[in-house]
């Protein structure tokens, strides 16, 4: 039996892990901005750095991107 991965916020993903983006819970402006930087559904995200406190660093579509923690809360992954 396959274990389904829970959908959870990106902020909860530990350093070094790879996840898949499901959706972004944010206004259209932010959504569009993130999309243009590569953050769309089914894109692979690798968490490079997730240390409290401090911004979040991920690799998406071969680019290293730094996010504020608030943003990481809004991005849902599995």
């Amino acid at each position, binding site marked *: 039996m396959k274990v389904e991965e829970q959908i959870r916020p990106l902020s909860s993903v530990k350093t070094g892990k790879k996840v898949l983006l499901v959706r972004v819970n944010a206004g*259209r402006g932010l959504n569009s901005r993130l999309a243009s930087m590569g953050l769309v559904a089914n894109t692979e995200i690798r968490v490079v*750095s997730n240390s409290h406190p401090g911004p979040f660093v991920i690799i998406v579509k071969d680019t290293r991107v730094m996010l504020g923690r608030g943003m990481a809360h809004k991005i849902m992954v599995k």
Partner: protein
Amino acid sequence: MKQITVALAGNPNCGKSSIFNMLTGARQHVGNYPGVTVEKKEGYCTHKDYAITIVDLPGTYSLTAYSTEELIARRFILEESPDLVVDVVDASNIERNLYLGTQIIEMNVPLIFAFNMSDVAKRRGLEFDLEQLSRLLEARIVPTVGNKGQGGPALLDAIVQTATEGRKARTHKVTYGSEIEEELAKIGQCVRDREKPLTEKYGARWLAVKLLEQDRDVIEKTQAPEVLQVVNRSIEHLRTIFHDEAEIVMADRRYGLISGACQETIRSSVELRHDTSDTIDAVVTNRILGLPIFLALMYAVFFLTFTLGKYPMGWLETLFGWTGAAIAQHWPADSALWLRSLVVDGIIGGVGGVLVFLPNILILFMAIALLEDSGYMARAAFVMDRIMHKIGLHGKSFIPMLIGFGCSVPAIMGTRILENRRSRLTTIMVIPLMSCGARLTIYSLFIPAFFAQPWRGPVLWIIYLTGIVLGIVAAKVLRLTLFKGETTPFVMELPPYRMPTAKGIFIHTWQRGWMYLRKAGTIILAASVILWALANFPKPAPDTLASLSAEQAKQTSLAHSVVGRLGRAIEPAIKPLGFDWKIGTALIGALPAKELFVSQMGIVYAVGEPDESTSTLSERLRAAYTPLTGFCVMLFCLISAPCIATIAMTRQETQSWAWALFQFFGLTALAYVITLLVYQIGNLF
């Protein structure tokens, strides 16, 4: 010669600037797009009988209506009708970079892709089937390495070819899947029927796509209510099908298209691409090591600036001194002595005081350019973000503040990287508190005059630190009161570490250094002349001076002049700070540019002809004031009234006189209060 206009587009960090520089060399012109503070860069070159104008559009990740830069880039392409667009793409990072490409494709304008940084791509083991990809994208692809100057001729060839063959209809369109395409067809038809002028200008398909994306700009332009109704129905319909906004699904489809094209045409033979960068980052942005490493680097930067800069500074001082003396000596005696004084005291004294600092400032800018070009700056913004966040600013804010230690003028211009207007305004307001190179001239005079070794280093340090601390407090207060509001969500790309090129550093250093020079050449020159006049006229009647000694004569002349009178007028106001009319005079003189404070003090203490028996300015200051007063003078200069060039730049970047004046008076008031406190309390001991 036939004319071709090319628009240069691309993501930030893709090396677009180096392509622009490579094609246009020195033939560039920087202006402003009307009404906004975004820079408009245009350059020229010739190739095979064609005169090519290249417009460097702002770097953007896409072409939505969400930011000014994107709107400007978009408007240029759609409304200024360039002959073609060159999309500069970071070849080592194609999938993300092509997102912008798909949007340009949808604008139906002839397109060329410049696959830049192709050397990095090759090193990473990426292999491209450019022919196939070119066919799929229906655009010529030229591999380039902008920062090494490779690919220029090929790109120019492609530009000429594309411009001359005229517009061709596309076979491979950007499609979004059947459900969305159905809705787009409906909207497109409605637009064609009801918005004829818009359709003529932008094309029904592009309008339909934008309307479905709920593009604010296009919606504003659409007047027919029927169109908006159809659009809303479509959005509702798609919402039920996809459980998401059409905009998001469309973004997804774009990437799908790109991914498909890339999978067919790009092969990667090396898996590990990020490991070196990651290792460096793990150290440099480490929670414990990050900040100390950053502080150590900053210390190194300033240390370098002051020690290396000392030598050329010394040479320049000698040069100006020698020039002044030579002119004074060889001037035909008794003819137009006022002119001699103007040239020697006014111009050479005034402007020389500024230029002497050029080496220091250039070294500082060079160090900053090095940190930026290598990619470290973005990491530093990350490290600083935590602290900046506490005062309500972005990590990115610290970069312009750092530049402010050289000169506020390019620093304020550098706040353009901040997207949040309130953060930006706050940063602009406090930048003058980052003690600039001009104020250093004042400290260089006062510190040795009043403080013996080993106190000199620490006193300088205290002054800089005071500025920084005040800046932090002021920013916090501003963010809590006037500029209250959320900080923008922090999203910033971390470019990979790169070896900076000498050429790149030179260009970046020069761009900022030039602003400083221009300030010197214009405002300070004019101000020096005016000040000289104000300090030398009106002259008292000759017989009143006849009976006085040389010293007394000079004093009387100054007291008689406009500057002297102004200085006396404000003396009662500044007495509680420990200042006298001479300092007041110099302060007034320093309004155009802080460097003038020193030359004004020099003039105040030795107006008239140079005299062999005069003691140095330092000695005279020491004789006239206490160390407490000396310190208070420096404190006051640190905080108060930024120079005219700074005010002018603030007004330009905020597009408002109100903010510029607020900065001026606010800082001066702050300076007054603090200096007052320090002096009065200091006096008790």
